């Protein structure tokens, strides 16, 4: 991993069209600004990890899911 030291308002350019700027530093939190083309998806890493984990918990054989679907159907009546 490339590690660079940056101060407030300093920025980093990635490729031709992505700029990351340190907007604010406060204690152990920094605010970063990201300028990127619209087709670049930006997601907080921990959120993506949480969704991966949740998907793994949710994936089941259809037979196992069927039971809950039945219960929901019954609950709706």
């Amino acid at each position, binding site marked *: 991993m490339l590690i660079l030291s940056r101060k407030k308002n300093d920025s980093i350019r990635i490729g031709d069209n992505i700029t990351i700027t340190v907007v604010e530093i406060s204690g152990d939190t920094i605010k970063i600004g990201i300028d990127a083309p619209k087709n670049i*998806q930006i997601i907080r890493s921990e959120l*993506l990890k949480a969704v991966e984990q949740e*998907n793994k918990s*949710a994936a089941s*054989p259809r037979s196992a*899911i069927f039971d*809950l679907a039945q219960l929901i159907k019954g*609950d709706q009546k």
Partner: protein
Amino acid sequence: MEQSTRITFAQGLPGFENLRQFSLSHAFEETELYYLQSSEEPDICFLCINPFHYTKGYEFVLPSTVQEELTIKHLSEVAVFNIVTINGGLEQATVNLQAPIIINTALGKGAQVVLNDTVHNIRESLKNLLQGTVAK
């Protein structure tokens, strides 16, 4: 929706990036529950729910990256589902509102979108959703 619709997830789903082909089918006619079944892994199936049928309290802006990826031109060709995690039963079951499944029904293209909004719950109570009490 027809009996079973083939959906291609060009990027897979988070945690299942290698799975690209799924079929979507209605669980029961009288509910808005669906099976999203992997065509490549028979044991991988997701129970999905059409959130808008149950609540008006769920809203999000579809990122332009997704609109582009799925070639979405009209809202009428978009279907939205959320994955249900069973957790052992109806009382414990949760719905992932943070990462909806977006499908272009006209083209059979799908993607699971991780929303950056912090207002959505990744583990919303399914009971709350079914009762329409999901807070805005």
